[in-house]
């Protein structure tokens, strides 16, 4: 094996109480394409940010080409021959390609000569690697695939021998992605070392020589790509977690309360995030949507709750159609019996600077029992909040406390109590136990089962497969914006894991 281009020895990094990287040891041989896979939040991007000098590791050593390298800033990394293509491009949108390429590597104080030099260098790179792009085009007018090419050119222009690509295909069409892979292979031929960060296993299998798997901040395995399988990687990525089984009776599904037909959603860049999705949720059942984060679940949730606008498709709530293809009114959806526990309680579920009792009525504050004429009835609001604090065992039991001072689990209970106590027909819940302690998880799971038993239709989205498997009566698996399979509650972890990795329905059943 060739000598190591990059060696990471004992890298640790914490943000507050969260350990983003835990004792990472990794050697990447020169002249190879090395994949790093893991779910969102597994610590891949943090590790690469350390390598690029954005962050400094709390402890550990980085060696580049066998020599210890002190990388404290991006300019140290550039000097060490490291180039990075960021997930969100680091380009100045209204600059031309050539201006972006030379920024920070101009050479001398006057632009005229640096631009002339850069122009001939770009021509050379274009010849050698097939990286064609008009140097005088304004970046914001280029399609994303070409913008990414500018990022690669930027790195090569600075003489990078090591190229790190962070989720490079997230914004690309399949054809653009294939083209990118061809370029990467060619760069490898020229002796460059490439690190590819992704959560898409197919890409790993298609283009890498070696692959490392990260999970919860730790590097759990490194394999030769030719000696591993998608199944093994999926299993390593998701991991075997302790199963929290919740006792529950069998479901007694009734009428269809939420019906989604042919729903398609695009994000602001025009990339299809939810692709022709159809499903029903009946009264008295929990439908779980499983999938690796970033496969369209968030967008699906946001669309059904009226936050995001759909491109096409119909949604029926308790027999009445709702139009989500134009700006919907989440307040109106609430009145019609839809309650929503958003995925991100800090940004969408709560106002952390508010008192607990204020958050407990958020979105329902215009209901008559909280009002006295045009004013809020503070006493009624606080009594109501105290009642919920008792019922949901929210601690500390002080409705005047600032919401930011509650723990994650208790904050989540505040959101759940607000949404569940409204007696909705349909409850949609995103990541109900993310960042929540074990005790609260049990409580929250219990409450969700109770909702089901009361005859509510519950739609549960979670990246925790165990949670889906222990709560849901039906499991839908999303991959790349589509629902790729449906399973019963007795589906095995392996079966679901394969579906989550995008492996076809029938193959998985074998």
């Amino acid at each position, binding site marked *: 094996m060739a000598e190591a281009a990059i060696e990471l020895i004992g890298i640790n990094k914490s943000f507050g109480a969260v350990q983003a990287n835990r004792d990472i040891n990794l050697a990447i041989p020169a002249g190879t394409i090395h994949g790093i896979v893991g779910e969102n939040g597994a610590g891949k*991007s*943090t590790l690469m*940010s350390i390598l*690029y000098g*954005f962050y400094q590791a709390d402890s550990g050593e980085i060696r580049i080409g066998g020599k210890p390298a002190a990388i404290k*800033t*991006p*300019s*140290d*990394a*550039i000097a060490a021959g490291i180039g*990075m293509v*960021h997930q969100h491009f*680091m*380009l*100045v*949108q*209204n*600059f031309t390609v050539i*201006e*972006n390429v*030379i*920024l*920070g*590597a*101009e050479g*001398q*104080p*006057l*632009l*005229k000569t*640096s631009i002339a030099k850069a122009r001939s260098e770009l021509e050379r790179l274009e010849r050698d690697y097939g990286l064609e792009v008009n140097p005088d085009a304004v970046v914001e007018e280029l399609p994303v695939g070409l913008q990414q090419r500018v990022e690669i050119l*930027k790195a090569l222009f600075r003489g990078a021998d090591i190229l790190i690509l962070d989720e490079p295909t997230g914004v690309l069409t399949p054809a653009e992605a294939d083209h990118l892979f061809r370029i990467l292979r060619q760069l490898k031929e020229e002796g460059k070392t490439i690190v590819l960060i992704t959560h898409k296993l197919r890409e790993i299998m298609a283009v890498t020589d070696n692959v490392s798997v990260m999970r919860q901040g730790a590097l759990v395995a490194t394999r030769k790509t030719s000696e591993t399988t998608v199944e093994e990687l999926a299993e390593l990525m998701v991991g075997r977690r302790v199963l929290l089984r919740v006792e529950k009776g069998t479901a007694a599904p009734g009428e269809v309360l939420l019906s989604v037909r042919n729903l398609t959603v695009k994000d602001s860049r025009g990339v299809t995030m939810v692709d022709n999705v159809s499903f029903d949720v009946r009264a008295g059942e929990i439908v779980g949507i499983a999938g690796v984060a970033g496969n369209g679940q968030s967008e699906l949730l946001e669309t059904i709750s009226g936050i995001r606008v759909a491109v096409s498709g119909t949604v029926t709530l308790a027999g009445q159609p709702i139009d989500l293809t134009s700006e919907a009114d989440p307040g109106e959806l609430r009145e019609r019996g839809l309650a929503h526990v958003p995925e991100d309680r800090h940004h969408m579920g709560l106002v952390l600077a508010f008192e607990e009792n204020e958050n407990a009525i958020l979105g329902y504050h215009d209901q008559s029992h909280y009002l006295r004429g045009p004013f809020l009835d503070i006493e009624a609001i606080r009594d109501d909040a105290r009642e919920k604090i008792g019922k949901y065992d929210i601690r500390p039991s002080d409705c005047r406390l600032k919401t930011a001072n509650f723990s994650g689990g208790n904050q989540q209970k505040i959101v759940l109590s607000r949404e569940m106590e409204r007696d909705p027909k349909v409850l949609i819940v995103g990541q109900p136990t993310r960042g929540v302690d074990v005790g609260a998880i049990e409580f929250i799971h219990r409450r969700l089962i109770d909702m089901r038993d009361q005859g509510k239709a519950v739609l549960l989205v979670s990246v925790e497969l165990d949670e889906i498997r222990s709560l849901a009566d039906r499991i839908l698996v999303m991959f790349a914006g589509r629902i790729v399979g449906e399973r019963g509650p007795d589906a095995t972890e392996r079966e679901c894991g394969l579906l989550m990795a995008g492996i076809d329905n029938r193959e998985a059943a074998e």
Partner: protein
Amino acid sequence: MDFFNTLVLLLDSMVRLSVPLLFAALAGLYSERSGIFDIGLEGKMLAGAFASGAAAAVSGSAWLGLCAAVAISVFLSLVHGFASITHRGNQIVSGVAINFIAAGSTIILGQAWFSQGGRTPLLGADSRFGAVRLPFAEAVRDVPILGPIYSELLSGHSILVYIAFLMVPFTWWVLFRTRFGLRLRAVGENPAAVDTAGISVEWLRYRAVICTGILTGLAGTYLALAQNAGFVKDMSAGRGFIALAALIFAKWKPVPVMFACLLFGFLDATSIRFQGTPLPLIGPVPVQFMQALPYILTVILLAGFIGKAIPPRAGGQPYVKER
């Protein structure tokens, strides 16, 4: 011919009145192009005017006055930078604070030092920036058309006027033809791109606000040592804000900034010129209306006639490394 002479005088007056606007607007251009909004142009100009008036009165030298103005104005710029770059504070609040500090302290210090009700002593011709006669200005005066244009409009201004107009191509050259300019424009659009390219965002923005300070110092000096003979309280009279309007009107580009400032200068000159003169067809117009005209026009122009002015994309936001 009478009309022609009036026009030349009007344009001459326009040039003089637009100079402080031009200095201040170009000052704002450096700062805002780097992503630091600067509503404190007014305050820095006023502090500069006071410093130059005071220093020239004490030393008797206009150039020492200029140095003092630049020094104090750069100092205030650095205060704004310290608040908004290093401490990532709110740029508007910091700018407003500088305006208040300048408005208050110039009067207090002026009264304490010179006891003339907040003004600085009246300066003699030696300690001011006097008119520069261009060669042959007198000789060609009587040549029809071109003569008055050369001798009245182009000649006979203070050195600061010529500096102001030379700053326009210079700023354009810095912005679009130098490495510093490229980085300055980049940091106002996407500081993260600058950071990942291995350039210090903070140092770059500090250099930008220093440029701002130098130019607002020149603006203040012009007010106190060229347009007037000493500092008078509140003599900047909102010009810092008009300059800001001109900057937006010109979409943060140097040459359009010059034309915007000339336009505002022209409106100002007209309002002074035609005060009390009955206008043809309309008749007498109240003085107050004429005085308000530049401001009314500013509002109208900014509201509708310039299309969408897209400010530097990272303007007003402190840079915090994400992730």
